[in-house]
């Protein structure tokens, strides 16, 4: 669950508006697709409004994506009302406004976030499988709701800045055209609450108010973190951005939670809440100073005390485990890297061999190496015949053929000659099926007697050979079961050392979807499915199916027929991991219901639902072994371990004894144990030979067999029956249900005050202040935003987007008035060498710009988008002799654009590690020059222009390419990246200056930060100094780290990484040109001294590369640049900074004040001539941006 930084959203809106009608698709907070097939309803309670969807068409009407989230809504409403008073009481801060909860059931992805100032919480109904492994046994609605509501109350209470304001944006740019230097800084002032307090606090307050508790899963996280020396440092746990490796995000939650529990013991249970009260009194650059203000002890001292306390506590625990005999086996890793440990002692040795210094590069590299083999590895299994071994590994499901007896943990210290080659072959010939989103964390099962496996996949996996080209017409990509054909395919080639090298049979992917379509077949009628288990006869699949916050047990034939619901819960009951009895007559699974988590069995025909056990532990991951015993994971000692329950005797035996956490047990045909072990570097799959089993009788810890004679613990079957029969009364919420209005229920608008300084001309002070306002309705059908800036150059803009149908519709408008002064150099003898006769005279102009735009965006799929847009505009001037603005040029333009991107989420990255952005834009425009003083015409490139139409095409290809490491580890770790960026554009006729392409140095202060679409093209030349109707330019850059993972906080500044990049651009902007002087084409000189063709056909288009562009005087323009990027945060807001030194190799001419000294030299060209006498000499240009991005 994350707390959205609302200011990021505003920045996107600003950038989108600035880009006018060609703006990027804004999308919504959670989904890229709209769902007009859903009707929204609202349940209103005393303190909440719960909004939830129901499909307009029923299943009977052929809707195969039917949604009805009414149970979730009622349950959420009940939980929300129950928690409201205790949570507000925690802070003595009682909300008077209603909080809106939006239930998302369109996707199978976990989602949960809030924007407190908007009184808005969004949660998904389906949290997926792995959430429970991170947090332990949880009742999803109460857990996520209380967590998010804790954010709402705590952050409102905490806010030193009024909640109507998302942040304050302060920016300044000083453009020095004489020294060729653009320097800018941007600072965002916002609430500075730290990661550990915000998220750890939300967990703690959920605990403190009785809805949450410190589970064994949380303890495993913190315990392994402490023992493996991976605690987030005092600096690291301040900010949530760019945590440096796996698990750091979750560590922030659990460390913050643990710290709260520590402070509760030391200072009282209201300590965390008191921090918020102190914060609200005044804004602090360093929020942590509050800790000392409240407790009297500096925050760093408390952190050190707490860390020392944990070290003692968990070291003692580990010593206890070791005294009992640590039993873990070894990691199930075919890729036998040096670090792979076969025994706990080896693992400790590996950890010890890392440098003892916490932040050493060596240690970080070693940790990286360990995590590269997988961090979310689950479900190690083998086929019944022992032929196949599978796992959910680093990048998806991995299946390979390898005898289990040669696996390192099983084989022991002497695996035998040739084993290494066999393992390598097994690794390299494994079939890898990428997983994504909704099937993440879900399981698979082998089909007995066949080289097949049933996996949890996604609906959209089958959308053709090029999935990125498929049209996403419904906006759904639910989980679905597939039968995967494990045909062995083997390609050999010789390794450099003479050994055979095998090609990994990794599924080719485009946009994250596997392409090897022929390998898998969807099982119909299995949408929203998870955790399949195939019956011993290979004909039936049992799995869990999600609907309305509930998982039920279902069986179905492999061809999709004979679907049968074995359970019919509709009350939030959550079933987990099913397995068949060896004879195929019964199934065992884990059930999370009413805050309990026990094992149940049921007959294959759906009868006889019975509790296998009933105790206070979290019992999960049952596996019914071929030996008739049931293996499962549980935590009676506070640590998850693997246990064996023998139905015949009632005996329960502990098999593992780990300091991490053992889950997902699987007994191999040879009786060895595969399981998943939690470590500080992820969930890892392990193997434990049967000879090493702990074999400790722990029958007394569990309550199995209620009726067995002599069982040490029993339970009452009547309790189970009553529990299963219990129906929560939610009827009182039925009466409060109403349809969500078409025009929406709107959140209170949020504003961002903006202060800007920008010296846009000699005497324009350039200071302006304004506000950006954003509002939307709660289900995101409508969004409104507006900007108003006051100062010498007032600016107002508005925008509206509608998301209630498949495409996004948007309209926007802008009005801007700009006062600019300019100067002319008058030289009586037209000889710049003699300065006595030179005078500088000034003018001032008031320009008005109006734009009205509209557009439609349609997301084709996750990667591609189509758009159509149109806008009308008018430029007008008011000079000294004008009483009002006189229109100068006006026009309309309509166009289509297409874009592809697979690099989402890297816009703020200092080093995007791979990805591609493609865009193509076509537009048709009409322009009318209307300036009365020029008789409604103007001259450009030797042609008089009045009214004209034109076509314009523009394309761009940007590629971030990780530099190949050729297997050399040091190169791979170096993270070098190559950037290729090619842009081209063509206008089919001579057009006015306003309609031409422009190029030159870009500062992110003006155009927005974007690591994906770089701003470095032609940085060696002044902004917009290159102009023409034909544009071609190519950029190449090489990027590499100078210092990574610095993770150092200096006051309110937190620094992550420093990268450098060098590169350059070549290309040009070609134009049309007037008839040659003395040539055959007739021409005349206008009042400004420009040659004008009598016949417009005599205005010739310049041919790229063959013609020298007459405006800038070059065939090709080339530059080079060197850039240093620093990724950082300031006041907990992103504060990425850069310095770019560029060198333009060509002397260029151009239009207006080419050399940027604010004085236009007209000694040769005369007033009014669009070309200047000035040139910009070859030389350096410097760009500096503090907090502007790059």
């Amino acid at each position, binding site marked *: 669950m994350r707390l959205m930084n609302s200011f990021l959203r505003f920045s996107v809106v600003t950038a989108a508006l600035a880009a006018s009608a060609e703006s990027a698709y804004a999308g919504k907070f959670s989904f890229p697709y709209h769902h007009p097939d859903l009707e929204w309803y609202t349940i209103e309670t005393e303190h909440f409004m719960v909004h939830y969807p129901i499909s307009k068409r029923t299943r009977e009407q052929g809707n195969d994506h039917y949604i009805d989230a009414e149970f979730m809504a009622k349950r959420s409403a009940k939980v929300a009302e129950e928690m409201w008073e205790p949570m507000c009481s925690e802070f003595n801060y009682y909300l008077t406004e209603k909080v809106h909860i939006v239930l998302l059931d369109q996707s199978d992805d976990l989602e949960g976030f809030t924007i407190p100032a908007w009184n808005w919480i969004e949660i998904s109904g389906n949290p997926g499988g792995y959430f429970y492994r991170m947090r332990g046994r949880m009742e999803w609605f109460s857990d996520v709701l209380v967590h998010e509501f804790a954010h709402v109350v705590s952050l409102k209470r905490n806010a030193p800045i009024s909640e109507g304001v998302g942040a304050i944006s302060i920016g300044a740019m000083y453009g020095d055209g004489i020294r060729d230097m653009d320097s800018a800084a941007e600072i965002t002032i916002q609430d500075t609450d730290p990661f550990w307090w915000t998220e750890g606090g939300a967990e703690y307050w959920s605990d403190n108010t009785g809805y949450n508790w410190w589970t064994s899963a949380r303890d495993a996280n913190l315990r392994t973190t402490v023992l493996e020396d991976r605690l987030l440092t005092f600096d690291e746990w301040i900010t949530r951005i760019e945590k440096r490796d796996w698990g750091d995000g979750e560590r922030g939650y659990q460390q913050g939670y643990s710290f709260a529990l520590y402070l509760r013991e030391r200072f009282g249970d209201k300590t965390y809440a008191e921090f918020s009260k102190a914060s609200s009194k005044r804004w602090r650059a360093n929020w942590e100073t509050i800790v000392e203000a409240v407790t009297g002890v500096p925050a760093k001292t408390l952190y050190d005390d707490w860390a020392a306390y944990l070290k003692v506590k968990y070291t003692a625990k580990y010593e206890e485990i070791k005294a009992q005999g640590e039993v873990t086996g070894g990691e199930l890793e075919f890729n036998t890297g040096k670090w792979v440990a076969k025994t706990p002692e080896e693992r400790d040795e590996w950890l010890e061999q890392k440098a003892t210094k916490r932040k050493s590069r060596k240690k970080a590299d070693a940790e990286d190496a360990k995590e590269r083999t997988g961090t979310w590895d689950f479900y190690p299994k083998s086929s019944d015949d022992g032929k196949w071994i599978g796992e959910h590994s680093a990048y998806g499901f991995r299946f390979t053929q390898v005898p289990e007896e040669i696996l390192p943990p099983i084989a022991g210290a002497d695996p035998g000659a040739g084993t290494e080659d066999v393992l390598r072959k097994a690794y390299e010939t494994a079939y890898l099926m990428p997983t994504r989103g909704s099937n993440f964390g879900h399981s698979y099962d082998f089909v007995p007697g066949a080289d097949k496996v049933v996996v949890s996949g996604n609906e959209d996996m089958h959308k053709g050979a090029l999935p990125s080209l498929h049209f996403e017409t419904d906006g759904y990509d639910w989980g679905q079961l597939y039968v995967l054909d494990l045909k062995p395919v083997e390609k050999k080639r010789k390794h450099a050392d003479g050994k055979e090298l095998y090609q990994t049979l990794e599924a080719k992917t485009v946009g994250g979807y596997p392409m090897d379509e022929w390998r898998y077949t969807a099982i119909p009628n299995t949408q929203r499915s998870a955790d399949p288990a195939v019956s011993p006869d290979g004909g039936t699949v049992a799995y869990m199916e999600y609907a309305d916050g509930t998982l039920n047990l279902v069986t179905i034939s492999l061809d999709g027929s004979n679907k049968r619901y074995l359970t019919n819960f509709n009350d939030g009951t959550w079933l987990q991991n099913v397995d068949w009895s060896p004879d195929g007559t019964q199934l065992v699974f884990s059930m999370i219901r009413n805050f309990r988590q026990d094992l149940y069995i049921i007959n294959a025909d759906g009868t006889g639902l019975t509790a296998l056990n009933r105790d206070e532990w979290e019992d999960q991951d049952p596996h019914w072994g071929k030996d008739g015993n049931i293996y499962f994971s549980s935590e009676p000692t506070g640590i998850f371990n693997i246990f064996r329950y023998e139905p015949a005797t009632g005996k329960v035996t502990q098999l593992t004894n780990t300091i991490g956490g053992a889950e997902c047990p699987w007994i191999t045909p040879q009786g060895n144990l595969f399981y998943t072990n939690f470590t500080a570097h992820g969930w890892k799959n392990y193997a434990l030979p049967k000879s090493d089993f702990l074999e400790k009788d722990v029958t007394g810890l569990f309550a199995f067999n209620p009726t067995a004679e002599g069982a040490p613990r029993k339970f009452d079957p009547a309790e189970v029956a009553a529990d299963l029969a219990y129906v929560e009364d939610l009827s009182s919420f039925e009466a409060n249900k109403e349809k969500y209005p078409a025009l929406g229920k*709107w959140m209170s608008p949020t504003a961002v005050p903006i202060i800007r300084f920008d010296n846009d001309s000699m005497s324009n002070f350039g200071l302006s202040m304004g506000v950006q306002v954003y509002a939307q309705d709660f289900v995101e059908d409508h969004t409104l935003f507006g900007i108003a800036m006051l100062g010498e150059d007032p600016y107002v803009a508005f925008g509206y987007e509608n998301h209630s149908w498949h495409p996004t519709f948007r309209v926007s408008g802008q009005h801007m008035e700009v006062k600019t002064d300019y100067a002319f150099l008058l030289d009586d003898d037209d000889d710049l060498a003699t300065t006595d006769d030179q005078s500088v005279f000034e003018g001032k102009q008031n320009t008005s710009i109006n734009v009205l735009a509209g557009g439609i965006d349609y997301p084709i799929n996750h990667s591609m988008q189509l758009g159509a847009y149109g806008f009308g505009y008018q430029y007008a001037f008011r000079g000294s002799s004008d*009483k009002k603005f006189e229109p100068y040029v006006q026009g309309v333009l309509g166009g289509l654009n297409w874009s592809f991107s697979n690099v989402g989420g890297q816009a703020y990255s200092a080093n995007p590690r791979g990805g591609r952005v493609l865009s193509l834009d076509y537009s048709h425009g009409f322009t009318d020059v209307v300036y009365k003083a020029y008789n409604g015409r103007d001259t450009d490139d030797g042609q008089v222009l009045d009214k004209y139409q034109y076509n314009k095409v523009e394309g761009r290809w940007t590629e971030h390419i990780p530099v190949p490491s050729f297997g050399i580890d040091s190169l791979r770790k170096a993270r070098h990246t190559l950037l290729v960026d090619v842009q081209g554009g063509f206008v089919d006729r001579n057009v006015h200056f306003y309609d031409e392409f422009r190029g030159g140095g870009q500062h992110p202060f003006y155009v927005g930060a974007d690591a994906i679409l770089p701003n470095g093209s032609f940085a060696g030349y002044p902004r917009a100094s290159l102009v023409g109707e034909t544009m071609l330019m190519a950029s190449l850059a090489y990027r590499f780290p100078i210092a990574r993972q610095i993770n150092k906080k200096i006051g309110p500044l937190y620094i992550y990484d420093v990268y450098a990049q060098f590169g350059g651009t070549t290309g040009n902007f070609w134009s049309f040109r007037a008839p040659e002087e003395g040539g055959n084409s007739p021409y005349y000189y206008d009042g400004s001294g420009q040659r004008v063709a009598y016949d417009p056909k005599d205005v010739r288009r310049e041919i790229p590369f063959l013609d020298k562009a007459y405006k800038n005087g070059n065939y090709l323009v080339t530059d080079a640049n060197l850039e240093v990027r620093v990724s950082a945060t300031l006041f907990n807001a992103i504060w990425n900074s850069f310095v770019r030194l560029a060198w333009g190799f060509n002397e260029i001419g151009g239009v207006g004040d080419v050399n940027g000294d604010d004085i236009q030299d007209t000694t040769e060209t005369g007033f009014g001539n669009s070309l200047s006498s000035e040139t910009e000499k070859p030389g350096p240009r410097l760009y500096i941006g503090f907090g502007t991005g790059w």
Partner: protein
Amino acid sequence: MRFVVMFATFLLGYAQTAHAGGGPFSAKAMRESFSTREVDRSLLLPKGWLELSLGFDYKLGVGAWGADGSRQKWEDARWHYMTERATLRYGLGPRVELWAEIPVHQARLVNEPLGTDIKDWSMGDPRFGAKFNLISRDVPRTSFVLEFGYKGPAAKESPANYIGGPNNVTGFVFTTGTPDLSVGLGAKQQVGPVGFTGHVAYVHRFSGVVQYLVELENNQFLGRIKPGDQVKADLDVGVQLGPVWLHTAGKVEWRDVTRIGTSSRGSSPNSNTDVVAESDGTAFDVSPGIVLNLSRGVDVSGYANIPLVGEDLQFFPIEDLHPTRGPTFGGAVELRY
């Protein structure tokens, strides 16, 4: 009259719905306390409150101040000035308030014997700034604040057709065309139902090229002006009688000389400018007023401004719109959310 009736209807509607919690948007309620009575209020708007003030003032100019402070009366010329202004204040935090103001001006010059009747209008110069709480006590109210303000010269500064002299003027200039930056202090002390409020501020007026100054060498380029810096101070005394706040203020202003000329190259562009003789001066006005505190969300106010002493104030406080001599009458409604 029609204007007044519509205004009153709107006001009544707002007062009824201000706290009903209805409307198209979810209300925000997490705001600091705010008194209904003027006398109890801080000089800073409390955290979370947004105030929109819609005001107007009107002045009939019948004369001017001479450079020596003498009162000059026009025989036939009459200047009519009307300004509507929208002012936004926002309590950003416990110690900070942001504010911004946009005026719109109308001006009309009538001289019947000469057949002159010229009308013009423009958005005025927007102003914005921030106030910071230095000292604040609740009962009795003591408030001491630091104030910053900026004026952006966005208003119309082109005199339209200037060729041929002022008799051919078709439009008016509504701004100096240059920015101002001010820093000041404000203080308020409550004594029972009586409140004393005072402000003092220094206003630095930057120089700039402006459209209404023409150099005389080529007659087509523009000149530079540096309006004189100002010091402003006022003292206001008021008494709270139930929902009525009666008050009167004395305002004094000192102004430095103005300079004009052409720009010079380099980092000191004012080197070529010269002092305009007798362009400095002082002024003193009194301003009685009344405020009706209808609720925490609504105030209605009215005031008059009477210039008692002045010196040639028609020289470039154009954006203040009252270069002429004569009383000003105005009012405002303040709506808070």
